[in-house]
C-alpha cells in the first residue's frame, strides 16, 4: 500500500460530503430568497389593486383626458414604504375605441438586490359614472 497522499475513494467521499453541505445551504438560500420575492410581489399586487379601485371610484379622474394619474391615496406619498420596501406606482389612463371604456394601466416598481422589479396590471374601466 502506498501511504503517501490520499486514495481516490477518500477524496471522492470528502467531495460528496462538501457537495451535500453546499446543496443544503444553497437550497435554503434559494427558498429564503423566493419567499422574500413573493412577499414583495404580494405587497405590490395589493397596492396596484388599491390604486385601480381608487381610480375606479374617482369619476373626476376617469373623465379627465388620457395621461398620467397620480397616486390616489392622500394619506401616503410616493415612494410607498410597505413591509420594509419602497414601492413606486405609475398609473396611465388611455382611451379605447369604446367611448364608455377607458384603459387603466398600473405599474408597481421596487428594488430587489440592486435590480428593478415591476408588476404591471391593466384594467378596462367604465367611465359613465
Amino acid at each position, binding site marked *: 500500500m502506498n501511504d503517501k497522499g490520499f486514495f481516490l475513494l477518500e477524496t471522492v467521499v470528502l467531495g460528496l*460530503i462538501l457537495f451535500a*453541505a453546499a446543496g*443544503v*445551504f444553497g437550497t*435554503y438560500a434559494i*427558498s*429564503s430568497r423566493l*419567499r422574500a420575492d*413573493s*412577499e414583495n410581489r*404580494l*405587497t405590490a399586487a*395589493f*397596492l396596484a*389593486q*388599491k*390604486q*385601480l*379601485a*381608487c381610480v*375606479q*371610484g*374617482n369619476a373626476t379622474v376617469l373623465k379627465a383626458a388620457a395621461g398620467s394619474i397620480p397616486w390616489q*391615496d392622500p394619506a401616503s406619498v410616493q415612494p410607498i414604504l*410597505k*413591509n420594509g420596501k419602497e414601492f413606486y406606482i405609475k398609473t396611465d389612463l388611455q382611451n379605447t375605441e369604446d367611448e364608455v371604456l377607458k384603459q387603466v394601466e398600473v405599474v408597481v416598481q421596487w428594488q430587489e438586490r440592486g435590480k428593478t422589479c415591476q408588476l404591471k396590471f391593466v384594467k378596462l374601466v367604465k367611465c359613465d359614472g
Partner: protein
Amino acid sequence: MTLLEVIVALPLLSIMLLSLGTAFLLLLRMYFCDLGDGELQEQLRLAAVNIVTDVSYADRVEVQQDGLKIWSRRRSSGQGWINYRLKDPLSVGKITKNTQPLTGDSIHGDIRITKLHCSKMNERTLLLEIEGINKTTGKIFSIETAAFLQNAVMAADS
C-alpha cells in the same frame, strides 16, 4: 494507519461532523421559521381577497369600529349580511367572517392578526389595511388595498 493518525483524525472528524450537524439543524429551524412567515403572508392574503370580493359585490357596506358589515342579496342561505371582525387582537388575533374564523392557527408559527382597519375613501371606495405578526419570529407583515363597490354606495359610518 498508525495510532497517531487515528488520534489526529478522530477529533478532526468529530469537529467536522458536529459543525455540519449544527449547521443543518440551524438551517432546518430557519426553514421552519420561514414557513411560518409564509403562512402569515398567506393568511393575510386570504383575508384581504375575501373582504375585497365581498365588498365589491355588496349591496350595502357599513364600516364599523371593529370591522365591517356587508349586505348582499347574493347570499343564498342564512342572513343577508356578512360581518368581518378582528377578534381579540392582543391575545387571539383572528379575523372572523360571521362566526367562523377566517384566519387561524398554524403549526408553523404563532400567527396573530393585529390590525383590521377599514375606512371610507369616498362613496364607492373602501380602503383596507390588515396587519399580522408571526410571534415565533417577530415578523410583521401588512397588506394595504382598496375595494370598489360595483353595485352600491357605502352607508354612513356607525
